[in-house]
């Protein structure tokens, strides 16, 4: 280890050396180090390259405000993470880090040519060029810009880690476990309140961790809090967003600080609802803006103190301080006492308190008041600084290997701003502090501007002898925004701080402006000759620090991304080789291929079986609603287009449901079981929507109706048994129901037993064949299915899926709402005039059917389509024209909604929405496809058994 590790001190565990790698080189640190402190201890000063100019950069800060020292971490396959701040990466054995945004290496980076040419790349330069010739933008300029874009590499493999999430509730949430937060927690711990104290660092203490004098207090406090029953302390947890009604999002990091291949989820999302929130987030020290302030080795004064006191690391052998705030003086006094040489204190203020000067004198530190740093030399590390008096005299060079900046403090008001609390400007601090709260929330300690760091002055840019427009004085280090960029933005007419931010990108880096916002504001304020409050403040937005997609996605991954609904019979389908399709949240068997069959062959076989023998179909996904009460019929009469009041118990009816705008939203066959009881069915995807719509009307428009609605979708398994042999198969299994055609005609319902299980047996058909839909309690679905399969073997029973169901229903001209209709189709358009109660004075959507455009001629109407070539199956979604020879853009008169090969008919069939379709039966329409025009004839939608002879048997 090189000589930058102090001989004693710090909270690192010197008994536990840790080996790690950075850019392929092996180093040693101690347990308790961060990657930054360990590298500094090894004498490393160069950590990364800036975004735009590829300037060499070191560490600016010791915490999450670090803009420069971004690294990538490699934890094995799939566990590559870019853009982590070295100051936040906890060291562990085997840690493997690399620098970013450089090629071929950190020390020799070809991208640094940008720095040489930096004068041609001022803020907003890309707005002004790359426009000629026009085609070069996509071919040359943009690809070149994208090559330079980004910080770290993008991951290329799937992340094998898991993430977890939880909810938590508390009376008091304290964000930040520094002295203010700990005091508040101690105070609350005796009150019986449920307290959650969270802190982003690996241990509580905040600023106290860099102040050994407070360590005994810290230890006592933590002991008391750990013993308190109702206090939960979460470390390595970042409160990243403050949402409505004291809802705080936080992410706890669980394994990144452990060696590779540690068990358990990587991160945990905490969604915390708090009665009261105390924000104790502290304050962030501001850099100073002067030429060369980004040279590696120039850093925040407080960071140098933290590295020394907390990690036992000297950031240099000889440090200089550039201050405008007392706090820097106190820092270097501490550093001096820790044994680090102090080359000089330079303070831009004309005078400071006498006791500061006295202590500096006592420690033998030379002091230059009313002076500023005007230049820094050294490329990968500071080797000297140039200072002069603010009147331009007394230029001199001071050798040093690190320069500390004490620019004053910025209260961390991020979460306060997320909560929409207002801010007020404090001239004395040169910063905004919390004002009026919008939530039940208070800011305490340094984040409220309440600190004991001493006094300071506010400077925008330090005085310089050089032309301010030609120096590189950085404001936003990561995005390479300089003071002159901000001046340029103002010169070009950008006056709002939001405009200046967007034009220069100041504050838009991954640190979200933690160190740059206020300096940017001050510079803009000077340039505009306006007070800071008059040019506004950019809004802090969640997250406080960047959070992984994985943590926010939580458990919602793969099968848990969204639950897949399956029926009781789904397992049988899976075991029997079904190919599934997703329909709304359900998965449904699409077809049951036998060996060697493709979909086409399987569907043809399934269709033949239904038409010639018997098919069995799982219809359990259909939505079901039980409608009960003395006014049930009246209610349905108002909801559906057709009349319901005269429907006799035991009979079924097709119901058509419109939205109030007159367009079809759902349909289904429903049964009246008793005068006051209906069993409704809806489409598979429409169940929840229909129930919600019905509840809405029932509760809010017609609360006088005595009706109850209950979703029963998941109470029943539904097996459709369809085909000429259906009755024969069913008869022996049913008790208490006469299946004869006279006793149980088409469109009726009976209750009884099947295989000893209660059933609601519907005689209905979506295939055009003799058919039954057998409703049994869900748990019996599969058993009944298997029984029917076994008993049906003699009848050639064949399971069929949704694809055959689609073909069979299309042969009969039965529509599927959502496929043949699309939310713009009225009952008349769909040819469902017969389902509209002409004598009913009202039903939902009725008035809209009289609107001018709805009654106008030429609307698109559902019709059948038969291609001239019977072997040609139209593509669903294909567009229809009257004149195929017209130029593009063509006038389209409709489109194909459903199209299949009909094995029954030995030809293709289709359904389409065609303008004026009902009036042009027999006429030819054209379907222009990329490879030729297809001719088809407009026909009736009922292609098979138009008389319904096969149904009424």
């Amino acid at each position, binding site marked *: 280890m090189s000589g930058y590790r102090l001989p004693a001190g710090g909270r690192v565990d010197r008994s536990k050396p840790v080996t790690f790698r950075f850019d392929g080189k092996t180093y040693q640190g101690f347990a308790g180090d961060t990657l930054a402190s360990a590298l500094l201890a090894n004498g490393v000063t160069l950590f990364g390259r800036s975004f735009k100019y590829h300037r060499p950069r070191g560490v600016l800060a010791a915490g999450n405000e670090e803009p420069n020292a971004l690294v990538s971490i490699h934890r094995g396959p799939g566990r590559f993470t870019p853009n982590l701040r070295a100051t936040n990466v906890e060291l562990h054995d085997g840690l493997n880090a690399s620098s970013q945004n450089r090629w071929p290496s950190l020390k020799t980076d070809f991208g640094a040519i940008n720095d040489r040419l930096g004068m041609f790349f001022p803020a907003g330069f890309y707005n002004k060029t790359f426009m000629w010739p026009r085609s070069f933008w996509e071919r040359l300029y943009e690809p070149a810009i994208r090559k330079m874009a980004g910080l770290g590499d993008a991951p290329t493999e799937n992340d094998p880690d898991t993430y977890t999430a939880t909810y938590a509730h508390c009376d008091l949430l304290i964000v930040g476990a520094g002295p203010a937060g700990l005091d508040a927690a101690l105070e609350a711990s005796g009150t019986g309140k449920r307290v959650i104290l969270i802190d982003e660092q690996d241990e509580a203490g905040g600023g106290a961790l860099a102040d050994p004098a407070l360590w005994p207090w810290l230890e006592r406090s933590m002991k008391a809090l750990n013993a308190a029953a109702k206090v939960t302390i979460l470390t390595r947890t970042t409160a990243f967003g403050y949402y409505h009604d004291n809802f705080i999002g936080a992410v706890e990091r669980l394994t990144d600080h452990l060696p590779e291949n540690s068990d358990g989820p990587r991160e945990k999302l905490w969604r915390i609802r708090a009665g009261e929130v105390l924000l104790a987030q502290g304050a962030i020290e501001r850099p100073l803006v002067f030429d060369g302030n980004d040279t590696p080795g120039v850093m925040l004064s407080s960071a140098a103190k933290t590295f020394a006191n907390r990690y036992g690391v000297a950031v240099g052998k000889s440090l200089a301080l550039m201050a405008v705030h007392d706090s820097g003086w106190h820092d270097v006094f501490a550093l001096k006492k820790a044994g680090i040489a102090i080359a000089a204190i330079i303070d831009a203020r004309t005078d400071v308190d006498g006791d500061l000067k006295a202590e500096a004198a006592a420690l033998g530190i030379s002091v230059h008041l009313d002076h500023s740093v005007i230049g820094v030399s050294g490329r990968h590390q500071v080797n000297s600084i140039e200072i002069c008096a603010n009147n331009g005299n007394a230029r001199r060079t001071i050798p040093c290997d690190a320069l500390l900046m004490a620019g004053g403090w910025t209260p961390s008001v991020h979460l306060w701003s997320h909560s929409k609390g207002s801010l007020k400007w404090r001239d004395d601090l040169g910063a905004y502090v919390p004002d009026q709260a919008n939530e039940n929330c208070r800011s305490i300690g340094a984040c409220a501007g309440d600190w004991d760091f001493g006094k300071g002055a506010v400077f925008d840019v330090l005085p310089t002898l050089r032309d301010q427009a030609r120096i590189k004085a950085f404001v936003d280090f990561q995005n390479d925004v300089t003071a002159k960029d901000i001046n340029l933005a103002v010169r070009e007419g950008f006056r709002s701080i939001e405009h200046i931010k967007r034009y220069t990108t100041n504050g838009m880096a991954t640190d979200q402006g933690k160190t740059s916002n206020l300096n940017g504001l001050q510079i803009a304020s000077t340039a505009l000759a306006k007070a800071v409050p008059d040019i506004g403040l950019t809004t802090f937005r969640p997250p406080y620090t960047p959070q992984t997609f994985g943590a926010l996605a939580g458990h919602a991954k793969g099968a848990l991304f969204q639950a897949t609904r399956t029926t009781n019979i789904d397992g049988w389908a899976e075991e029997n080789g079904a190919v599934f399709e997703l329909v709304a949240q359900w998965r449904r068997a699409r077809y049951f291929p036998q060996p060697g069959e493709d979909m086409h062959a399987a569907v043809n076989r399934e269709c033949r079986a239904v038409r010639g023998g018997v098919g069995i179909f799982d219809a359990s996904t259909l939505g079901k609603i039980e409608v009960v009460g003395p006014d049930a019929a009246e209610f349905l009469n108002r909801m559906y287009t057709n009349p319901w009041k005269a429907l006799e118990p035991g009979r079924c009816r097709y119901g058509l449901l419109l939205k109030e705008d007159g367009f079809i939203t759902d349909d289904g066959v429903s049964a009246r079981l008793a005068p006051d009881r209906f069993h409704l069915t809806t489409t598979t995807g429409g169940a929840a929507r229909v129930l919600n719509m019905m509840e809405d009307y029932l509760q*809010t428009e017609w609360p006088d109706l005595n009706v109850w609605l209950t979703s029963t979708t998941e109470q029943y398994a539904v097996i459709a048994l369809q085909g000429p042999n259906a009755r024969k198969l069913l008869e022996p299994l049913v008790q208490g129901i006469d299946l004869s055609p006279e006793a149980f005609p088409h469109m009726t319902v009976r209750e009884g037993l099947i295989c000893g299980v209660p059933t609601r047996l519907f005689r209905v058909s979506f295939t055009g064949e003799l058919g039954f839909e057998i409703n049994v309690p869900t748990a019996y679905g599969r058993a009944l299915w298997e029984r029917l399969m076994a008993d049906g073997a003699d009848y050639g029973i064949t399971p069929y899926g949704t694809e055959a169901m689609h073909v069979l229903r299309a042969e009969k001209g039965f529509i599927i709402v959502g496929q043949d209709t699309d939310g713009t189709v009225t009952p008349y358009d769909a040819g469902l005039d017969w389902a509209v109660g002409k004598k009913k004075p009202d039903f939902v959507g009725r008035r809209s059917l009289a609107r001018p455009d709805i009654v106008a001629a030429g609307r698109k109407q559902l019709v059948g389509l038969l291609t001239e070539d019977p072997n040609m199956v139209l593509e669903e979604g294909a567009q229809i024209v009257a004149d195929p020879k017209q130029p593009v853009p063509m006038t389209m008169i409709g489109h194909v909604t459903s199209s299949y090969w009909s094995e029954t008919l030995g030809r293709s069939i289709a359904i389409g929405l065609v303008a004026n379709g009902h009036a042009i039966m027999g006429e030819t329409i054209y379907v222009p496809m990329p490879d030729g025009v297809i001719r088809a004839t407009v026909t009736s939608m009922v292609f098979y058994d138009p008389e319904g002879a096969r149904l009424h048997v």
Partner: protein
Amino acid sequence: MILIHCPYCDEQRPEIEFAYAGQAHIARPANPDSYSDEEWERFLFFRANPRGRHHERWRHTHGCGRFFNAVRDTVTDKFETTYKAGEPRK
């Protein structure tokens, strides 16, 4: 995620239990046929959409299932009150 007081459950519950249901106190006419096209258009589509105090409906979908009314400030998202369907406008 806002907290919403359900006037039926008399509990304050998180938003994910509820479904927003649009502007409140838009009564469906008893006799829609008596409405002109313009009146029907207003009933169907025109909404107050105020910046500030807003009367709106929510349904406690994953709770009691009831629709109720609320007064909320659309600038702050804070509820002034919630009340049962059928109660007079507040």
